[in-house]
């Protein structure tokens, strides 16, 4: 040790001694401090432990009290609704990155600013039922990325939360970013917790329990095609690969009535508005885009809900869906009372009225539907339980240029078609059905383009119930020109047409002296003179150049025939018989005849 060092050390000691001198010296002082400091320097680095918070505090995160300076969450003050309350608008947003609430991604906070002219007072949420006691409508501040067309704004009313980028969540928001990690733990009991499933996040994006879909009825459930969640007013789905879809309100109610996902599958998009803006629809299926048994469900504000599926849906599609003649389905698939067929009812709005319709699916008769006056008449005839059976055609335009439509029907017996019928409708002649053999006879005579024209009555029974008949009429210049009939008696259908019908009707028809028709009109010749004759049970009507529709009946007719009839000496009748004073007589080409 050098002399200078020794002197330095001595000097040091003296200074220390001077400092330590005094009756109140505590020798322990310096050494204890040395020990303390020495140990302090060897301490582990200070780590700031998070103060353990109560479970209650953890639900709302940091700065949840009124004095913290932050704003309440909208769901806290909006009946659970994670959206801007009335009188406010989205004014801007910020994010906290790496958020556990969003499974490690950014969590977005959207401020709802009070609209100018709307009355909200600054305060704090004071309810004891929530720990989110932050400020309401106090912070006169705006982030400024949303609704840039609104330049006047009040304070922040509340905050909306989403994991969806704001510019996707709401198109009025730009993607101009702002970050505030200080708010990363802020939350509320009315918001989802750590890393909820994507469907739950989507649910809260749509407003959560306070939104239009309402509170949960059943939690997230797994399906073969994704997941779904049942809510009070609708259902949300996540289906692959479409993403999030939904069905809501009356459509949702009908979806459940149809049996839900296990019965009809899931929607692969949200409910859609119908063409024309009235009504909504959605398509449920088990596989996206598959043609295998989708269900097309509708709701109309006046007609209610209904759906179409299967072959009915295919026909409905071909008829241009709700814009076509059937309109909206107003029922789900119904079963006939004998369970052999199914049917769906429809309704279409017309100007000042509605038009009803129905489509049937029958394994024997196929899938056909009818609507309008034809359907109305069909229903009046007891529809598929009546004599008409099931439709076997769509309403079709009549031929002949006189307008009108018709549809054909068929009854089923022993799994096969028994007989066919038709309903014809024409503005001049009306709407009537023609059934079975009468229809067949009418069709054989050319139907609406033949001599009989359009049906002018349904099938009726005669007064003595021995026959049934339809009347028909031809149309000229939109008026009925001539009337005819077909009678069905004893299995035979006979038509009485034109002048023959007129004469026969004038003689009281079937109850008159001629009785029921016994044959169709035939054309014959007396020598070189052609004539037409229709036989009746008790007589005949002759029509020739000598006499138009001359009726002969009873004894006079028998006498005429005994003398050879038209080919006999009397020739063809010139007049119908006339009865006077108990004597019936008629005039012929070559004389007259009386009876008795």
């Amino acid at each position, binding site marked *: *040790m*050098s002399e200078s*060092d*020794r002197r*330095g*050390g*001595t000097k*040091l*000691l003296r*200074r*220390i*001694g001077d*400092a*330590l001198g*005094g009756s*109140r*010296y*505590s*020798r*322990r*002082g*310096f*050494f*204890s*401090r*040395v*020990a*303390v*400091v*020495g140990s*302090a*320097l*060897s301490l582990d*680095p*200070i*780590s700031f432990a998070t103060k353990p918070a109560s479970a209650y505090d953890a639900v709302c995160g940091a700065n949840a009290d009124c004095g913290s300076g932050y704003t309440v969450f909208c769901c806290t003050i909006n009946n659970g609704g994670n959206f801007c309350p009335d009188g406010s608008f989205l004014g801007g947003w910020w994010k906290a990155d790496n958020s556990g609430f969003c499974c490690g991604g950014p969590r977005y906070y959207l401020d709802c600013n009070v609209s100018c002219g709307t009355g909200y007072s600054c305060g704090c949420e004071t309810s004891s039922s929530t720990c989110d006691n932050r400020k309401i409508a106090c912070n006169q501040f705006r982030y400024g990325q949303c609704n840039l067309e609104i330049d006047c704004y009040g304070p922040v009313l509340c905050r909306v939360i989403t994991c969806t980028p704001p510019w996707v969540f709401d198109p009025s928001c730009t993607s101009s970013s702002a970050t505030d990690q200080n708010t990363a733990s802020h939350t509320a009991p009315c918001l989802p917790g750590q890393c909820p499933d994507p469907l739950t996040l989507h649910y809260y994006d749509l407003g959560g329990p306070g939104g239009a879909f309402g509170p949960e009825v059943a939690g997230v459930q797994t399906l073969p095609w994704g997941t779904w969640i049942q809510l009070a007013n609708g259902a949300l789905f996540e289906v692959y690969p479409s993403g999030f879809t939904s069905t809501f309100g009356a459509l949702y109610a009908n979806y459940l009535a149809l049996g839900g996902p296990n019965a009809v599958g899931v929607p692969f998009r949200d409910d859609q508005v119908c063409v024309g803006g009235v009504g909504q629809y959605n398509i449920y299926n088990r596989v996206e885009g598959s043609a295998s048994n989708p269900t097309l469900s509708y709701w109309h504000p006046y007609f209610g809900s209904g759906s179409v599926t299967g072959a009915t849906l295919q026909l409905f599609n071909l008829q241009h869906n709700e814009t076509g003649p059937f309109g909206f389905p107003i029922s789900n698939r119904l079963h006939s009372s004998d369970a052999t067929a199914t049917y769906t009812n429809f309704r279409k709005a017309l100007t000042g009225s509605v038009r009803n319709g129905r489509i049937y699916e029958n394994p024997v008769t196929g899938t056909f539907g009818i609507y309008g006056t034809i359907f109305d008449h069909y229903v009046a005839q007891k529809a598929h339980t009546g004599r008409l059976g099931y439709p076997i055609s769509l309403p079709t335009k009549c031929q002949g240029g006189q307008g009108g439509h018709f549809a054909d029907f068929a009854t089923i017996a022993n799994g096969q078609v028994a007989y066919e019928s038709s309903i014809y409708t024409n503005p001049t002649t009306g709407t009537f059905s023609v059934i079975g053999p009468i229809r067949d006879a009418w069709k054989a005579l050319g139907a609406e383009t033949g001599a009989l024209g359009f049906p002018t009555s349904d099938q009726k029974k005669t007064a003595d119930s021995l026959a049934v008949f339809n009347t028909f009429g031809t149309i000229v210049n939109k008026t009925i020109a001539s009337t005819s009939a077909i009678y069905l008696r004893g299995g035979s259908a006979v038509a009485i047409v034109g002048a023959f019908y007129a004469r026969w009707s004038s003689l009281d028809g079937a109850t008159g002296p001629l009785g029921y028709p016994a044959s169709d009109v035939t054309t014959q010749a007396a020598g070189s003179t052609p004539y037409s004759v229709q036989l009746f049970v008790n007589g005949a009507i002759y029509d020739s150049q000598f006499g138009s529709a001359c009726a002969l009946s009873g004894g006079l007719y028998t006498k005429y025939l005994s003398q050879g009839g038209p080919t006999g000496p009397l020739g063809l009748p010139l007049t119908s018989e006339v009865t006077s004073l108990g004597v019936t007589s008629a005039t012929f080409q070559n004389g007259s005849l009386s009876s008795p």
Partner: protein
Amino acid sequence: MLIVLIIGCVLLGVAVVFATALTSAYAQLERRVEHLSEANELSVPLELSARPTAVPTGVGGAAGRPAHDLSGLTLHGDARTIATVGVEHTTLLAFLSSGCKTCGRFWETLRNQGPPEIGPTTRLVVLTKGADAESPTELHRVADGVEVVMTTQAWQDFEIPGTPFFVLVDGPTGRVAGEGTALGWDEVRNLVALGLGDASILTGVDTSAMKPSSDAERETMVDQILMDAGIFPGDPSLYPLDGDTPNPEG
């Protein structure tokens, strides 16, 4: 009378014990100083070649050369200025580099534990040279999560001889209150304590409420004297060697 005698003997005995203890303490201190003088070895950072070993200087920090505000870029490319002049607080400038081995100790603490405790009125600013003289890639590695300002100009403004180097700036006066090198953050804290004349930075313990005021004052004075002599808390020379009288504290 007998009682008075007994009391007197007791007092004498206490005084003897006291004096013996005091003498022993002085003797111990003398031995410590002697050992210290004999040792007289200070390890020198290899990178510090332009200047002799720097001993922390300056007490009170009011008489140094003028300081400068800082202007540079952060590791993320942010433009940054730091005010050291005309501010209320003291600023500790830590001049580090990515390549110096001794700096590694400082980087590691900053990365893993954050800024060291240097008192509530002192602000730590970590500086490196700019991208013209530093490797941003290497800096990202050693300074991950550390706020760094890259500025070659600061090296020139403060005449930095090498790294690691520390400069303490007194904000109100805008002058350098202390500067020097160090092997670890402990020594840096000593620098700050000296520069501010506040030994509480080192202990983090406010003893003013624990001890009689005169006792505390004496301790502060003794601390200062020892530190002026380069003896800092934890210095081995303060503790008993083999064969010495056991530490009075037992």
